[in-house]
C-alpha cells in the first residue's frame, strides 16, 4: 500500500471527522470566490456611475475578508491537527518515520484542498447569482442578474488558497516534528490550579470599560476630551474598551464565579457546582479568545448597525433635502407624464445679521402652503408681517448658528420666529429658504428668481425621464436637481455598502460562531470523562443537559453580551454624531445577529451533549 493510498483510505473511512474541517474550508472558499466574482463583475461596474468608489470599497473589503479567512483556516487546521495527534502518535509507535507521516499528511491536505477548492468554486458560482441579485436589489435597480463565470475570479481564488494550503501543510509538518512519542503515554494533565484573580485587575477592567463608554458618549464639539485627544480619541476609546473587555473575562469573571461558588445555597444545588467550576476554568483559560470574539461581534454589530441605519434613513434624508421630483431655476421644459407643475416666484434677499451679510431666497406663504400640502407637510395658517420662518434641513444644533428668534435686516427688518429642519424645495437648487407673508414679500427688495418644480404621475419611469431632462438642459435652466437621480446615487453607494457590510458581517459571525463551536467541542472531548463520572453517580439526562446548556450558554452569551453593549455605546455615539435616529434598524440588525448566534448555540449544545452521551458507551 502506498502512502497516497493510505492517505486516501484514511479520508474515506474517517469522513465524518474530516467533514467539519472540509466544510469550513469549503465555506471559506465559497465566501472568497463569490466576493471576488462580484468584484470582477462587469454588470455592477456598468450599472453604476460611482463604480470607482464601489470597486475600491470591494477591494478593501476583500483584503479584510482574506485576512479573516487566513485566521479562520489556521484555526480550524490547528483544531483538526489536535484531533489527529493520537493517530500520528500511533503511526510513530508502529515505526513509521516522521518524514513518511509528514508526506502522508501532506497528500491528505492536498487532497482535501483539491476537493474543497472544486466544491467551493462550484457552490460559489451558484451562490454568486443569488448574491448578485441581492446586491442589485439593495442598490435599488430592477434588473435580473445572470450567471457569470469569471475566470479572473477563479484564478485569484486558486492562487490565494493554494498558498493557504501550503501554509497549513507546513503547519502540519511542524506538529509532527515537534511531537514526542512520550507525549502519548503521558496522561492528561492532572488538574490545573484554581484560577486566582487580583482585585486590582478586576477594578481596572470595569473602570476602563466604563471610561471607554463615557468617552464614546462625549460630544465631538463640546467635550474637553475631544479637544485634548482630538484625532486619537477613537483609538483611545477602542483601546480602553478592548483592554477592559479582556480584564472583564480574565478577572471579573473569576470573581463573579467564585462568589457564586461560595454561596452554598446556590452552588450546592443540583449541578450548579459543576457549572460554576467548569466555567471558572473555561472563561479564564479562554479570556483571549472570548475578548477577540466580543470585539469582533462589537465591530460587526456596530458597522452593520451604522450602515443599516444610514440605509434606513435614505428616504428621510432625501425627503428632507430633495422633496420635489425635478427642480431647476429658469425656464420650463416639456416634461412627460407630469402630475403637478409649479412655477415658483421668489426673491433673493441679502440680509444682515450680527454685522455679517447672508443671502436667502424668500418664498411667499401661499406658495409654501401649496407645496407643503402636496408633500404632506404642515401648513402655516397665519403669519404676522415682518416675521419669517427659516427652512434649513442642513441645520445641526452643534455646528450651525441658531437663527430662531434672530432679527435679520434688509430694507425692512425681519424677525425669525422659528427654524425648521425640513424643506419644500430641493436644497441644491434653492438653498435654505425663508417664508414670509404676502405683504412682507412685497415689501422686501431683492433679485426676483423663477424656479420650476415638477412631480410625476405614479408609475412613471422617473429615472428615465430624469436622464432625458438632464440631456435637454440649456443655459435657460440652471441648478437642475432630480430626486430620482439623487436617490439612485445614494442608493447605489449605500446599497453596495450595506451589501458589503452585511456580507462581511455574516462572515465574521459565521467565523466567530465556528471558533466558539470548535473550542467548546474540543473541550467537551477533553472533559467527557467528567460527565461519565457524573452519570455513574446518578445524574440524569435532564440535569446533564441543563448544566451543559448553561455552560455553553454563558460561553456564547458573555462575549455576545459584551459585544452588544459595546456596539450599543458605539452606535449611540454614532447617531449623536449624525443627528439621526437609527434605533429601529439597529434593533432589527441586532435581533438578526442574536438569532444566528442562537442557532450556533443550539448546534454546539447538541454536539456537546452528544459527545457526553457517546462517552458513556465505552465507559
Amino acid at each position: 500500500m502506498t502512502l497516497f493510498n493510505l492517505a486516501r483510505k484514511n479520508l474515506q473511512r474517517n469522513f465524518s471527522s474530516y467533514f467539519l474541517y472540509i466544510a469550513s474550508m469549503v465555506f471559506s472558499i465559497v465566501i472568497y470566490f463569490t466576493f471576488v466574482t462580484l468584484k470582477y463583475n462587469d454588470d455592477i461596474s456598468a450599472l453604476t456611475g460611482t463604480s470607482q468608489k464601489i470597486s475600491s470599497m470591494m477591494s478593501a473589503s476583500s483584503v479584510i475578508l482574506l485576512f479573516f479567512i487566513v485566521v479562520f483556516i489556521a484555526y480550524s487546521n490547528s483544531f483538526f491537527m489536535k484531533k489527529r495527534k493520537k493517530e500520528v502518535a500511533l503511526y510513530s509507535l508502529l515505526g513509521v518515520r516522521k518524514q513518511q507521516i509528514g508526506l502522508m499528511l501532506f497528500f491528505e491536505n492536498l487532497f482535501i484542498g483539491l476537493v474543497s477548492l472544486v466544491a467551493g468554486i462550484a457552490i460559489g458560482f451558484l451562490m454568486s447569482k443569488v448574491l448578485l441579485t441581492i446586491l442589485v436589489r439593495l442598490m435599488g435597480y430592477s434588473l435580473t442578474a445572470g450567471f457569470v463565470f469569471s475566470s479572473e475570479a477563479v484564478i485569484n481564488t486558486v492562487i490565494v488558497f493554494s498558498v493557504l494550503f501550503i501554509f497549513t501543510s507546513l503547519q502540519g509538518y511542524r506538529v509532527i516534528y515537534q511531537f514526542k512519542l512520550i507525549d502519548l503515554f503521558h496522561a492528561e494533565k492532572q488538574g490545573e490550579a484554581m484560577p486566582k484573580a487580583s482585585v486590582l485587575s478586576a477594578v481596572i477592567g470595569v473602570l476602563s470599560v466604563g471610561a471607554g463608554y463615557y468617552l464614546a458618549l462625549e460630544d465631538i464639539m463640546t467635550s474637553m476630551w475631544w479637544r485634548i485627544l482630538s484625532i486619537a480619541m477613537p483609538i483611545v476609546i477602542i483601546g480602553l474598551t478592548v483592554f477592559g473587555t479582556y480584564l472583564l473575562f480574565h478577572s471579573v469573571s473569576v470573581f463573579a464565579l467564585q462568589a457564586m461558588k461560595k454561596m452554598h445555597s446556590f452552588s450546592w444545588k443540583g449541578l450548579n457546582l459543576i457549572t460554576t467550576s467548569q466555567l471558572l476554568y473555561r472563561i479564564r483559560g479562554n479570556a483571549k479568545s472570548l475578548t477577540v470574539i466580543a470585539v469582533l461581534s462589537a465591530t460587526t454589530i456596530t458597522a452593520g448597525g451604522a450602515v443599516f441605519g444610514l440605509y434606513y434613513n435614505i428616504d428621510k434624508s432625501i425627503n428632507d433635502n430633495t422633496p420635489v421630483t425635478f427642480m431647476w431655476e429658469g425656464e420650463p421644459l416639456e416634461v412627460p407624464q407630469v402630475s403637478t407643475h409649479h412655477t415658483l416666484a421668489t426673491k433673493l434677499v441679502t440680509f444682515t445679521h450680527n454685522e455679517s451679510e447672508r443671502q436667502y431666497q424668500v418664498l411667499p406663504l401661499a406658495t409654501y402652503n401649496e407645496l407643503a400640502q402636496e408633500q404632506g407637510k404642515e401648513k402655516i395658517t397665519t403669519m404676522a408681517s415682518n416675521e419669517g420662518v427659516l427652512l434649513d434641513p442642513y441645520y445641526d444644533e452643534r455646528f450651525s448658528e441658531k437663527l430662531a428668534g434672530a432679527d435679520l435686516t434688509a430694507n425692512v427688518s425681519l424677525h425669525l420666529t422659528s427654524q425648521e429642519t425640513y424643506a419644500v424645495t430641493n436644497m441644491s437648487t434653492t438653498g435654505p429658504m425663508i417664508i414670509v407673508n404676502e405683504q412682507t414679500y412685497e415689501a422686501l427688495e431683492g433679485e426676483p428668481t423663477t424656479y420650476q418644480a415638477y412631480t410625476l404621475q405614479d408609475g412613471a419611469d422617473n429615472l428615465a425621464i430624469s436622464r432625458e431632462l438632464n440631456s435637454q438642459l440649456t443655459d435657460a435652466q440652471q441648478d437642475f436637481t432630480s430626486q430620482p437621480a439623487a436617490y439612485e446615487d445614494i442608493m447605489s453607494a449605500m446599497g453596495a455598502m450595506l451589501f458589503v457590510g452585511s456580507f462581511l458581517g455574516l462572515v465574521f459571525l459565521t467565523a466567530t460562531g465556528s471558533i466558539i463551536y470548535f473550542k467548546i467541542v474540543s473541550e467537551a472531548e477533553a472533559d467527557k470523562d467528567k460527565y461519565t463520572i457524573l452519570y455513574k453517580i446518578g445524574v440524569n439526562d435532564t440535569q446533564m443537559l441543563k448544566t451543559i446548556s448553561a455552560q455553553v450558554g454563558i460561553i456564547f452569551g458573555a462575549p455576545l453580551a459584551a459585544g452588544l453593549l459595546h456596539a450599543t455605546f458605539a452606535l449611540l455615539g454614532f447617531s449623536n454624531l449624525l443627528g439621526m435616529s437609527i434605533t429601529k434598524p439597529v434593533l432589527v440588525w441586532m435581533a438578526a445577529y442574536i438569532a444566528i448566534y442562537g442557532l450556533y448555540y443550539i448546534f454546539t449544545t447538541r454536539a456537546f451533549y452528544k459527545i457526553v452521551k457517546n462517552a458513556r458507551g465505552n465507559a
Partner: protein
Amino acid sequence: MKPLVQVKAVNKIYGKGAQTFEALKNITFQVEEGEFVGVMGPSGAGKSTLLNVLATIDAPSSGDILIGDDNVAKMKDKALADFRRDNLGFIFQDYNLLDSLTVRENIVLPLAIAKVPTKEINARVDKIATTFGISELLNKYPYQISGGQKQRTASSRALVTQPKIIFADEPTGALDSKSATDLLESLSDLNETQNATIMMVTHDAFAASFCQRIIFIQDGTLSKEIHRGAKTRKQFFEEILQVLAGIGGDVNDVI
C-alpha cells in the same frame, strides 16, 4: 428477612449474530442487608460486567435484578439515574474524582444532586470526612493529595448519601499496601458498625479477605462461594488462596 439484592437468571450477551460473546451465563444469587460480599475470578471471567450490571451502569440481556423492591433490569434510563442517585454508591479503581472541584465539593456533589438542604450537607460531609480521616484535606484539590487520600475521598462521596448498597470496583487496585489496608479497614468498620452493605470486585486475595463472603465466577458462571464465618482474616485469606489455585486465578497477584 427479605434479601437486599436478588439476582435471578441474569445473562449478558455482547455482540450480534454469529459473533456473540456470553459474558454472564444464568447468574443467580442474593445479598443480604449488611453483608460485605467479594466477587473474585480470573481476568475476563465477567467480574466487572457483573458489577456494572448490578450497579445499573450496564443493562443485562435477560433476567431480573431486584434491589429492595425495584427491578432495575426493567427500569428506563431516566428512572435508573434517579435510582442510582438515591440508592447506590460507587467506588472505582481510578477514583473518578472531579479535579476541578475541591475534596469537600466532590463529597458535596451527590447530596447537591439529590437536593439536600445546605445545612444538612455540611453536617453530613463533616461526619463522613471524620470517618475516613480526611477532615484536614477538605479544601484541597484532588491533584494536591495522594492516591490513598483520593480513594478515601471517593469512598466518602459514595457513602455520604447513605446508599442502600455500595459497589466497589477494584478499590485498592491503584493503592500501595498501607493505603489499601487503611481503606479496607475503614470499609470493614463501616460494614460492622453501621451495617453498610458493600459489594466489592477484586482480584486481590488480601483485599478479599476483609469480606464476609466471596463469590467466585469463572467463564461467566458462578463457580464457588465461601464464607468467612468465625474464621480469622488470616485463615480466610489462606482459604481464598486455595480456591484461587483451584480455579487458576491470579495467585501471583497476592500482595
